[in-house]
């Protein structure tokens, strides 16, 4: 059935308002969309890494989650999900869960809990082949502790541990390409997306990921107003700029086959993405023009590599 935003929005909400995420944060949108991708007749167990989302969505005695939810620690969402999946398998096998009940196991974490501290646990769970879907809401830094750099922080972004200054133009290293690393694990479905348009891209990828057997992965660029420095209402404009500049390419990999799912009509220069955010402000200062050139060069190189894979 073709995607219809209106119909999707009429589904009963499975991630409720009243959570404590910031205005203009993308994580809440990711959660709502992720839960809309679970068929209404199916149940889910969400395994959440420590982070903004966890402290904002499950503050005792309230929870924003309609489905079962477990938070254990920062670095072990995938291992926790492995255990939930094992329990589900054994209960199904022993006939203790009705044969017609379908429970989807989802893990979700920020880039800190996914690219960095939770990387080992994620890699282990991918390699073992558990039937679960990992959603990374990549907001490009450790936001819960106040915008410290992560391996997902792009080069030149000012973070609280890589601040810009007279001797510094922000983070020195490029972003770790986690999506590619997950592809290399041989996961049957891997996708990169963000929040744009009518959320069709996110929805279709989330649905495919959740309903593909085996370990699947969706990496969603998820802007953070406090860490990136933008007014709350610009959230979607920033996502759009990220995909139109190809800073964050939109694609999926099905059993190793690459497919571009969004190609900008006109590829915009990177400053269209960077100028909207205070974390790149210093790049526009006199004498730092080279940073924008270097950023452009890197984006172009990565984009060409991806296009070659998608052919």
């Amino acid at each position, binding site marked *: 059935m073709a995607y219809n935003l209106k119909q999707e929005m009429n589904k009963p909400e499975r991630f409720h308002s009243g959570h404590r995420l910031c205005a203009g944060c993308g994580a809440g949108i990711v959660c709502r969309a992720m839960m809309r991708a679970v068929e209404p007749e199916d*149940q889910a*167990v969400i*395994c959440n890494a420590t982070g903004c989302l*966890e*402290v904002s969505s*499950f*503050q*005792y*005695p309230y*929870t924003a*989650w*309609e*489905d*079962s*939810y*477990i*938070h*254990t*620690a920062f*670095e*072990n969402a*995938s*291992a*926790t*999900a*492995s*255990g*939930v*999946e*094992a*329990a*589900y*398998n*054994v*209960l199904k*096998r*022993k006939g203790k*869960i*009705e044969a017609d*009940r379908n*429970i989807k196991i989802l893990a979700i974490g920020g880039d800190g809990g996914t690219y960095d501290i939770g990387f*080992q*646990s994620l*890699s*282990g769970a991918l*390699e*073992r082949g558990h039937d679960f879907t990992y959603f990374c809401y990549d907001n490009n830094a450790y936001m819960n502790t106040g915008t410290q750099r992560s391996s997902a922080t792009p080069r030149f972004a000012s973070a609280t541990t890589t601040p810009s200054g007279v001797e510094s133009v922000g983070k020195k290293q490029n972003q770790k390409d986690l999506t590619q690393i997950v592809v290399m694990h041989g996961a049957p479905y891997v996708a990169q997306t963000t929040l744009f348009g009518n959320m069709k891209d996110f929805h279709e990828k989330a649905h495919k990921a959740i309903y593909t057997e085996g370990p699947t992965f969706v990496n969603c660029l998820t802007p953070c107003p406090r860490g990136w420095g933008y007014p709350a209402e610009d959230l979607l404009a920033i996502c759009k700029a990220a995909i139109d500049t190809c800073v964050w390419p939109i694609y999926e990999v099905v059993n190793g086959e690459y497919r571009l799912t969004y190609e900008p009509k006109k590829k915009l220069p990177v400053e269209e993405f960077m100028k909207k955010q205070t974390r790149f402000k210093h790049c526009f200062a006199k004498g730092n023009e080279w940073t924008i050139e270097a950023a452009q060069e890197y984006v172009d190189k990565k984009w060409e590599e991806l296009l070659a894979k998608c052919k």
Partner: protein
Amino acid sequence: MSIRERLSGNEAIATAMRQINPDVFAMFPITPSTEIPQYYAQYVADGRVDTEFITVESEHSSLSACLGAEAAGVRAVTATSSAGLSFMNEVLYVAASSRLPIVLAVACRALTGPININHDYSDSMAERDSGFIQIYGENNQEVYDNYLQAHRIAEHPDVRLPLMICEDGFITSHAIENIELEDDEAVKKFVGEYHPENYLLKKENPLAVGPYGVSNYYMEARVAQAQAMKNAKKVILDVAADFEKTFGRKYGFFEEYKMEDAELAMVIMGSSAGTAKAAVDKLRAEGVKAGLIKIRVFRPFPGEELAKALKGVKAVAVMDKSEGFSACGGPLFAETAGACINMPDRPLMVDIVFGLGGRDFTVEAALSVYDRLKNIAATGEPGELYTHMGQRER
């Protein structure tokens, strides 16, 4: 009918696990506990159990997977030692505060540095405040029997706490001894099925586990957890009583060995107690009123009962097989001394740290401790409060 066998402590634990047939076993190897999941992997391979056996990539993940499984509504177990237990540290606290009755077998081994694979309690003692129940065995039989009682204690509605079954690395884990095993069906009947009240996979009632607890709620959660640990005392004794009725072997919080009229006593744990008992027997034959208390349950700590058992004793040596670096004694000493604090005419007490990293503990060494106690009792002077024993002088 029990079955006479010859098994190592590790195989005894693996056998108990096989008989119980837990739903999930998440494993990562570390010496000297590795054999437990290895034996178990063979049971899985041979179709003797129907456990989901997850071969994870670290101890942090093995306990995390157990946490996920137990929260999802099934019995989950694992095993570890030393650095593996330390690596689990964060998750141990999460398991306990989430009130998930995971059973963790620990083949106790020294912590690094320098790296050492032999026995002491530096690993399990470092986790004494994690919220896990800790039960220690002197030999293979006790370790097996303790394991058979573990799930019933941990899963009891008044408790709902994770539990460590501790054996002495290599000394118990690898030494093959005679053992009486119980019949598979009898074990299954004794342990029973697991019926959690609420769990993630329950159809009617979704569950949320692991909240952010602000200051308004955190303390209540911790007090409830502390109460559960207090409640565990009664449950441990109840389960032990049923165990004795069913299988005939008696257990309590600790074993009192020749304590009826003892004037000199050791408080000790694990396999070292076997060595010390030989010293007590020798002294008793010479007319010396020596006795020994072997702690079985370290968490919850049976302080009141221990103080009662030490009543009338003149001098006590607390034998710590781990170094706490507190500069005033090891963890068993702190607990024992604390337990006796309000006791009228409490015994004089010293702490002796011994056997670190597998350093041998002999009958002669135990006799020298009683010699020291004799002197303390005679002079009324405890001397140096906190000493080490068995190390080279230079």
